[in-house]
Structure formats: C-alpha cells, structure tokens
C-alpha cells in the first residue's frame, strides 16, 4: 500500500471531471542519486496540489503542481530534509497541501478514535468471556469448581 501515490480515482459513482486530470502528467526528472529519486517520488506523492480537486502534485499537470515539483527537486538537490521541504510548502500553501496531516490539537482524534475503538472492543470481548465464566462457575458444585480452577490455571501455562 505504501506505493499508492496520488489522489485519484476509481470511479465509483461516475465522474465528471471538469477541470483537472484529463491526462496525468508524466514528470521526467533525472536524479543521479537513486535515494534522492525515491525521496522525490515520496514527497511529491504526499503533497496535494492546491489547484486540483483531489490529486497529489506528482500526477497533476496544473502549472502550480509543476512549480511545486520543480521546487521540491531544487530543495532536495540543495540537501534539505524531507521535513524541511514539507514545511517549506506549508509556509507558502498552508497545511492543506499535506496529505498526511500533522498531529496537533485538531487532528489527534484521527488516530485516537481508532485506538479507542480497539480498546473498547477488547473490553466488550472481555465482558462476554467473563459472563461465561461467571455463568459456569455459579452452576458448579464446590468440588467441580476446584477441579475447574485447577484446569483453568493449567491452561495459560500450556498455551504460553
């Protein structure tokens, strides 16, 4: 999934594309260093074209996307870090251009909510399992319960 690059398309309910993307741009850029080429494609895939509807700059042929690609390449050759380049773009075009939003006061929920759901789900599961255990323990005689306890205590060890 990591290679998925841009905002784009599968037409789900049919589209009428008015402005952007009749043809995705084919951007020819030669980096001597393959690492730089890799970083270039990652960065241009994670920056959103401000002019387009929902496209990363790597595939858009709108003029501003071309300028931004040009600038990314320039900054990379200058030796700037990925983060510096992203900040550089945010300073000019706003947070909007980041496809991977920064973690801050307004965005933490994006990561927190899925995490909370998994935890709550785990608790619900535990409740069901407890319910069974209780139901069973209540129905057993003293002797049976002792036997059960010893069985239950044995289990964790065996599965470890």
């Amino acid at each position, binding site marked *: 999934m990591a290679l998925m690059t841009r905002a784009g398309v599968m037409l789900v309910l049919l589209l009428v594309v008015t402005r952007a993307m009749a043809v995705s741009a084919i951007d020819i850029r030669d980096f001597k260093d393959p690492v730089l080429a890799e970083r270039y494609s990652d960065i241009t895939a994670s920056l959103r074209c*401000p*002019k387009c509807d929902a496209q990363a700059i790597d595939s858009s042929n709108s003029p*501003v996307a071309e300028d931004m690609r040009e600038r990314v390449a320039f900054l990379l050759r200058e030796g700037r870090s990925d983060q510096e380049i992203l900040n550089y773009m945010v*300073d*000019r*075009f706003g947070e909007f251009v980041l496809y991977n939003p920064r973690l801050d006061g307004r965005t933490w929920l994006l990561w927190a909510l899925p995490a909370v759901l998994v935890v709550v789900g785990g608790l619900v599961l535990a409740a069901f399992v407890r319910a069974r255990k209780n139901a069973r323990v209540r129905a057993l005689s003293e002797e049976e319960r002792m036997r059960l306890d010893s069985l239950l205590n044995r289990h964790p060890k065996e599965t470890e």
Partner: protein
Amino acid sequence: MRRRVLLLLPFLIFLVLGFFLYRGLALDPSARESALLAEKFPSFTLSTLEDPDARIDESLLRGQVSLVNVWASWCPTCKEEMPQLLELSERGVQMVGIDYKDTREHGRQFLEEFGKPFEVNIFDPDGDLGFELGVYGVPETFLVDANGIIRYKHIGYITPDDVEEVMQEVEKWR
C-alpha cells in the same frame, strides 16, 4: 434504561454527523485559506513591468495599505476583473500589480487594452514571487497593511459584488 440509552447512541451519532453534512453543503470545498495571513509579505528584488532596469523590493509596500493583485495577460478572468480594480483604485486604494509568468510585451499590451489601475507593476516572469505568495491560480489579490503584513487574501477574480467586501477590509486595516 441504560440499555435504551445505549441503543439510542447510533441515532445520536448520526444526528451529529448529519449536522456536519448539512453544514458541509454550505461550504465551498474548493476554497483554500492562505498560509500567509498575518505574515510579512515575502521579500523580493525584481524589476518593474515598465522598466527592465528598475530594482524594487518589499519596502515598496511599507507606509500605506495596498492591494497587491497577481495578474497575467494570458488569464481570461483578469480581464473581467479590471473594471473592479479600476474602481478600487479610483476610490483611493493603492494598487500594486504583479505580472505573473508573462512577457513584458504582452503585459504592457494587456494594460493598454484593459486599463491601468496599478501604481507599480512588479514583473515576475518566472513566477518566483508568486510561488513565495502561495499563488496557485491567477488572479489572486492580497491586502498588505502599512507595516508590510498580509492581512487578507481574495482568491479568484474580484466580482462587482466583491468590491464592497474588499473595500471594507481595506478600511479595517487603514
């Protein structure tokens, strides 16, 4: 009772979601905010459209409120916008133009034909200043206060209906 509340939860979540979807209908998803509000106008050294040998920089914008309009001769809506810019200029707003990714010849011709609201025209043939300003479509208009701080940005062309709004912003920062 607690269980009924729990069962009502999906409905409540849906109400909240529905509220946002309703609000969303009134929003324009293609609107963008400027990253440069309350920031200094970027520094630059460029020539003017009229004079290739002139050298101007951001100090040009100090001392009074100005409207900086990014335009180009190749941009059709810039023509539509000219009457409104002329009106703003007549109403005493200092207008500064940035001729963006253009040639001198075409730029001058454009002004001859459609009017000259600008006191100065910064000539930005490579769009470098435009990039610093986060311009992604022409025309765009920035309001810069007397200290050279960007206070307001209008994306797209200023329609006759927008003139009053722009004037109010100008008055606000005077």
